[in-house]
């Protein structure tokens, strides 16, 4: 009997099952939050959900697929722009938000065919160029009025309280759906393939991984998530300013949240988003020097703690709440007894 027989592959531990149950309960509680929390609180939570969504998407792209994009603001802005356009054609605002995000994801398909042929730094800067080109094209639309921007006034037809709750639920549902999708995707073949490509593209290819297709699925999903964040932001802020909605600062924020929280974990970006949200609330008024600090802290984390805070937690206590990989653990006593019995049988 080989020693390897003492190990079993584990995907769920007891702590993780509890965490999954906890997540379900947390989302259910958050769904009921409008009963207890006032308008301002809901608005803040909506902002937090946008941050979480952005961080999770950037982590999916950069952490798991190794695609460092500096151009995700393209979809953040494009989703909002499509939603505005649809509303101008007479769509109801909330369906327009969802369809707008889907439209941005549709644009991501041809863009991905182009961008995914590039590597590393070239991919990063070219994705930025694409975002800039899309922004300029959008600014040609008379509806947007160039630098002036426009706003989603159709939302004002709703009673303000109703609007806040509807936007909140839309944000919560989007976040939950995208997190679950990401989690399932990462545990599927595609997730494993993406990480294999990130670690060694040639080796993955030689094992039969369809590199382009895998990357494309992840890229388009991340684009859709960012577009959802963009339309939620539009519904929450009402105004649409091309330079803000297509601003590269969104990528700076994503970078900060993921680096501080922890790259390549499910939990890290969520934690990073909460930290970023709190910092924004406390220091947001300091303007440029606050943003300076954000940049410096992101660099410091990249240098000193590349795994982020959650990476440190995991290294210290081995805690993993939402496992996307498999792990070898020593088999339980029962399993070993059962195997010993089987061995004995085969001998006789």
């Amino acid at each position, binding site marked *: 009997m080989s020693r390897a027989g003492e190990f079993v592959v584990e995907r769920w531990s007891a702590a993780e099952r509890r965490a999954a149950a906890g997540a379900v309960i947390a989302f259910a509680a958050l769904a009921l939050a409008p009963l207890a929390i006032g308008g301002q609180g809901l608005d803040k939570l909506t902002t937090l959900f946008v941050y979480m969504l952005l961080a999770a998407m950037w982590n999916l792209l950069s952490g798991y697929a190794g695609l460092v994009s500096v151009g995700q603001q393209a979809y953040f802005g494009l989703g909002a722009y499509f939603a505005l356009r649809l509303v101008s054609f007479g769509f109801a605002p909330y369906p327009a938000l969802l369809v707008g995000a889907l439209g941005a994801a549709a644009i991501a398909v041809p863009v991905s065919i182009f961008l995914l042929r590039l590597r590393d730094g070239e991919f990063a800067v070219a994705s930025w160029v694409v975002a800039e080109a899309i922004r300029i094209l959008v600014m040609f639309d008379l509806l947007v009025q160039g630098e002036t921007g426009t706003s989603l006034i159709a939302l004002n037809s709703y009673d303000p309280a109703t609007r806040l709750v509807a936007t909140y639920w839309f944000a919560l549902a989007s976040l939950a759906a995208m997190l679950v999708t990401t989690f399932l995707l990462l545990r599927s073949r595609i997730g494993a393939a993406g990480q294999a490509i990130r670690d060694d593209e040639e080796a993955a290819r030689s094992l039969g991984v369809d590199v382009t297709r895998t990357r494309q699925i992840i890229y388009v999903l991340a684009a859709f998530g960012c577009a959802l964040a963009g339309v939620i932001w539009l519904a929450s802020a009402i105004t649409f300013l091309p330079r803000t909605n297509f601003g590269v600062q969104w990528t*700076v924020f994503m970078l900060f949240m993921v*680096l501080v929280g922890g790259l390549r974990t499910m939990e890290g970006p969520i934690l990073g988003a909460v930290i970023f949200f709190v910092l924004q609330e406390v220091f947001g008024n300091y*303007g440029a020097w606050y943003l300076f600090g954000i940049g410096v802290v992101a660099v410091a984390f990249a240098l000193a703690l590349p795994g982020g805070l959650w990476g440190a937690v995991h290294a210290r206590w081995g805690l993993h709440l939402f496992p996307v990989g498999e792990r070898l653990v020593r088999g339980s006593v029962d399993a070993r007894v059962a195997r010993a019995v089987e061995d004995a049988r085969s001998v006789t």
Partner: protein
Amino acid sequence: MFDAIVQGVLLGGYYAMLASGLSLLFGVARFINLAHGDLALLGAYLVLALVRRFGLDPFVATVPVLFVMAALGWFMQKWLFARTMRGGILLPLLTTFGLGAAIQNGLYGAFGSDAASLGNHIGNLSWDSFDLPFGISIGKLPVLTFATAVMALGALQLLLSRTRFGRALRATSQDPEAARLSGVDAERVQRGAAAIAVALAGLAGVFLAMRSLINPYSGPAELIYAFEAVVIGGIGSLWGTLTGGIVLGLAQCVGATVSPQGFQLAGHVVFLVWLGGRFYSQGTRGTPWHRRLLKWGSA
């Protein structure tokens, strides 16, 4: 139209100056410095500060600033980039991008958001022009920028082809391990390359500030242009960078005659089409990195 073409070619000189540093550092240390544009702006603001505080001539003030920028490049490579380079391809990108954000907002905090320019500190150079026959006039400042760029590239070429440091640099860019085995201090060479790259960025930033209004957030756009010039001209080739800069400058200036937004858009479109053409000529797999890298010797 003829005006746009002349302007475009001269603007290409500025892009070559900006892009050569980016290309050099990429060639030697294999990472794209996403803070390159912001470092250019930092150089411009440092000159602006000296001019405002001490009433120096901008060209005089540029000299000490270039040394400061070179030192900054050296120490950033030593303390920052060299550490991140050990962490694979992801970390240098993240670090330089974060650094860029820090520089932008630091400049904003120190200098405010008002658009600034060196244009009003250089006397009539900012609007003077050479009058040529057939009613053509060419601005003196663009010509000076172009000439400086060609001189900077020429000096860099001489440095690379004639000096011991240049040979070590070319060796490091081709194969760091082999260079190390032959007794080259690759880390030191990379620091030297970073010093040159950041000083060149600062020099380009000064010319940018003389030509136009700048603000603390101008850096990212300049990085994008520099990168476009590098890719169009071919990574690792100095004079290719000049060609790339001229192609980009031409596209932008001709685009600007169509619409005000056309300046940026035409440049981006030419760049993206160029990339597309590269894929087409290479088939689907693309050339491996190391084969596209560096042709300093033949440059």
